[in-house]
Each structure stands twice: as structure tokens, then as C-alpha cells.
């Protein structure tokens, strides 16, 4: 049984058919990446899984249970967390409060334990514990968004363009962190425009083109495929 199974979903924004018959699956322990150009439907797909948008047709199952049409706020306690595009940390709240919000569905001393773990992974956040998130740099905000998502102890962590708008050195760092999280046992669904980096760390990958899956394979296969090289890797 796959951890996440997306079957033939179609998502519309009004009359615009944004996601067309997309199917894919994520197995426990994998890093799966969805790559594609701007407007290919990557973010729409993620938001449909996390319940912020709803598919008109098709089905999504998570851990064997249907989550089609389940509102976003009910999915967190089932083990789904998302690092949204553009980070979307709560800019007027402190770093610590942002992390507390990540643990909204949990309570008790476990929360403090998780906060300590996040600070251990991201020492920069500990230094800035009481700082308002709006004063953090882009890279720090990305770390906060990741830490915040980890606070719900997700079984599947979905990340939407974590490298967006970051300096190359920070991009490297973020991907290092993704690898570490994966090693620590987190299953990851990664949406990226930076196909080169994403394919390097992914077990499997799907290419989205104008709302539909055009190619799929292992990260290595796709990284070596001529079509991908031409379209996304600048070669």
C-alpha cells in the first residue's frame, strides 16, 4: 500500500483546467519530486492533496484512507504537513510562536520536546527564538517554515519550492536539510523548479507539463534523459 496515492485528479480554477488527470504515488520512506515549469500545476496539485483546493474528479488516498474533499485543517492530525510556496511563516509572530502553531493539533510536553528537536536541527532558529519572523532573512524563514511543518510530526512532508528566491549557497543548505530529514525517516514529496537539484536527491520523479504528467521515472533516469536535459537542465 502506498503512503499517498493520487489517482486521476482534475482540478479547476473556475473555467481553467489547472490539473489534468494527474496520477502518482509516494511510498513510505521515499523522496518523490514533481518538477516542471511555472504554471505547470505543481502547486495546485500539492494544495489539492493538502485540502486547500478540491479536485472535481479523481481520488486521493493517504495511508489507505480516502482524503478526497477532507478540509485542510483535518489532514494535519492524520500526518500530512506542507511547507507552502513562498514559506508563508506568520510574519508578525515570534519564531517560537510559529513553531507552536505548527504543533496546533498536538498538546502537552511532547510539543516542548518537538520544539527542542527543531531548535537542535536549526540552531539559527534557537538564536532568534523571540524574534518576530518578519525580521528573519529568506533562508531563515525557509528553515522556520520547515521546522514549523515538522512540529506536527508528519508522516508525509510536502514541500513547495523550498529553494525559491534563495542564494545558491542557501539552496545547497536547504537540500542538505531535506536529505537529512529523509535519512531521519521522513517521507518527502518535493515540488521544485530547480530540476537539477531535485532530481539529484529524489528516488522517483514526475514531470508536469501544462497540468498533466508528461514523464516519470527514477531521479537518475530523468536526470539522464535527453528530453529533460533539454527542457529543464539547460543542456
Amino acid at each position: 500500500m502506498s503512503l499517498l496515492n493520487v489517482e486521476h485528479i482534475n482540478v479547476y480554477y473556475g473555467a481553467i483546467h489547472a490539473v489534468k488527470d494527474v496520477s502518482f504515488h509516494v511510498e513510505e520512506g521515499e523522496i518523490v519530486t514533481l518538477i516542471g515549469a511555472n504554471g505547470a500545476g505543481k502547486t495546485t496539485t500539492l494544495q489539492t492533496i493538502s485540502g486547500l483546493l478540491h479536485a472535481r474528479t479523481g481520488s486521493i488516498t493517504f495511508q489507505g484512507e480516502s482524503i478526497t474533499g477532507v478540509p485542510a485543517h483535518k489532514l494535519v492530525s492524520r500526518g500530512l504537513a506542507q511547507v507552502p510556496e513562498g514559506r508563508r511563516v506568520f510574519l508578525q509572530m515570534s519564531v517560537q510562536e510559529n513553531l507552536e502553531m505548527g504543533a496546533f493539533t498536538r498538546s502537552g510536553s511532547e510539543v516542548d520536546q518537538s520544539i527542542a528537536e527543531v531548535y537542535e536541527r536549526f540552531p539559527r532558529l534557537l538564536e532568534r527564538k523571540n524574534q518576530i519572523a518578519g525580521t528573519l532573512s529568506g533562508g531563515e524563514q525557509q528553515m522556520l517554515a520547515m521546522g514549523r511543518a515538522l512540529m506536527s510530526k508528519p508522516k508525509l512532508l510536502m514541500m513547495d519550492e523550498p529553494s525559491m528566491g534563495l542564494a545558491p549557497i542557501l539552496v545547497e543548505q536547504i537540500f542538505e536539510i531535506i536529505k537529512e530529514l529523509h535519512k531521519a525517516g521522513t517521507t518527502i514529496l518535493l515540488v521544485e523548479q530547480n530540476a537539477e537539484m531535485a532530481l539529484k536527491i529524489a528516488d522517483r520523479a514526475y514531470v508536469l507539463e501544462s497540468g498533466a504528467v508528461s514523464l516519470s521515472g527514477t531521479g537518475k533516469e530523468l536526470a539522464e534523459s535527453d528530453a529533460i536535459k533539454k527542457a529543464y537542465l539547460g543542456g
Partner: protein
Amino acid sequence: MTFLNHLISGISLGSVYAIIALGYTMVYGIAKMLNFAHGDVIMVGAYICFFAVASYGLNPIIGILLAMLVCTVLGMLIERLAYKPLRQAPSLAVLITAIGMSYFLQNSAQLLWSANNKMFPSFLNFGGTTGISLFDGQLTIAWTTLVTIAACVIIMIGLTLFTGKTKMGKAMRAVSEDKGAAQLMGINVNTTISVTFAIGSALAAIAGVLLCSSYPILVPTTGSMPGIKAFTAAVFGGIGSIPGALLGGVLLGVIEIFAKAYISTQLSDAIVFAVLIIVLLFKPTGLLGKQIREKV
């Protein structure tokens, strides 16, 4: 000494505006809508307390609690029935609905309780006096005034603690910043909005009772002018900001009383709104309003 007297009545009136303004500002912060029916919830609260105390002879404290209970339920009902179905609708539709709801409440009150004036009972007498006398009787402060200011301070401290320390309060701040991201944290946005309306409406009931204790003529349109002024106070202080509501409310009250005392009774409202326009010309986000810069 008269100056001090005016200042104190200004702060007291301003405290009422501030308590009402909180309802506007919290709802705006979270649901991004202007609930123009908020002023009329004040009126309903005042009527409930009036009937409980004057007709049924209940203890004023019970009267206030009853008014808070009724208003809380009313506020949540209004949100559930009139505003929630319009969550995805253009903001203009929501605004018109809110104005319609305001007239609906006023007319229902008129139908139920008639348009005749009701004299709101003054129940704030301690030890048989209506106030305290200072400086050999040169300065008299009514108990109502003191209670109003105290209520405002307590409410402000309570709300600050609520939004700063409790899980629900923090969730409300998260929703007011980014609904989508809040949902991804597992926060139920609908519940949060409901709680906001409940708090705002309970505060409206308190404001209604305090207002009518100072200005005891109760009619179905009682809430309308204070409602508009409190909305002005919320914008003045920076809509969406809780300290802004306090600052805006108190300033507005003081300006109004001073204008009445030193310039012209008839022109006082015009002066109040003129000040608002001038402030907004120079600071469009209001005194404490924040401009949110997004970091990319």
C-alpha cells in the same frame, strides 16, 4: 478643574468606543470584513439588560451576564447565517449584507420593543452615592465613569493575555495573518471566526450597558451612532490592531467631549470625523496600523 472633568468624561466615553471598536477590529483582522451590524448588537445588549433589570427586577450583574450571553449567541448566529455563506463572495456583497443586517436588527427591535424611549435604570450606586467627590466637591466623578474606564482596562488586559498567551488567541493571530497557512497548521478557520464574533459580541453587550448607564435613553437606533464612531475609532487607531482600538477609541472620546465643551455642541461630531479624515490623509493605515512588507 473643569478641564480635568472634561478629560475624564472624554476618557470614559472613549473607553466605550474602544470596547466597541475591539469588535470591529478583531472581526476585520480575522474575517477581513466590516461588520456594520456590530453597533446594533450593542443596542440588543442594552435592551436585554434593561428588561432583565427594569421589568424582571433581576440583579444588574445577572442582567449584564444575560445580555452578554444573548449577544454572544446573536453574534455567532449572524455570522453563521448571514456572513459564512458569503466567505468566497466579493467583499462588496458582504458589506451590503452587513448593512442589511444592521437595519434588520434595528427594525426587529422596533417591532419587538417599540420605538418609544426607554429610560435605562442607573444601577451604579455605591453606598447611596452616584459618584465620588474630590477637591472639596470641585471634581465629581460618577461611578459609571469609573466603572467604564475600569472595564475598558480590564478588557484590554484580558484580550492582550488571550491573544498573546493562549492557543486559541495565537491561532486567531495566525488566521488574521494568513488563512491558508493557518489551515495547514490544522487550525479550523471557521471556528476561529466564530470565536471572534462571540468575543466581539459579548464585548458589545458590555459596551451597550456602559453606554446606556451614562446616556440612559434607549431606542432601537441607540447603537447606530456609537457604532459608527467606534468604527471610526478602529480605523483611526489602525484597523486590525487591538492597541489601536484602545488608542483610537480614547482619543475619539476625548476629542468629542473637548469639542463639545470648548467649540460647539452641534459641531462636535463633524469635528470628530474631520480629525479622522486628517489623520487618514497623513497616515492611511491609522495611528498604529501596520504596513506588512513581504520578504521574498
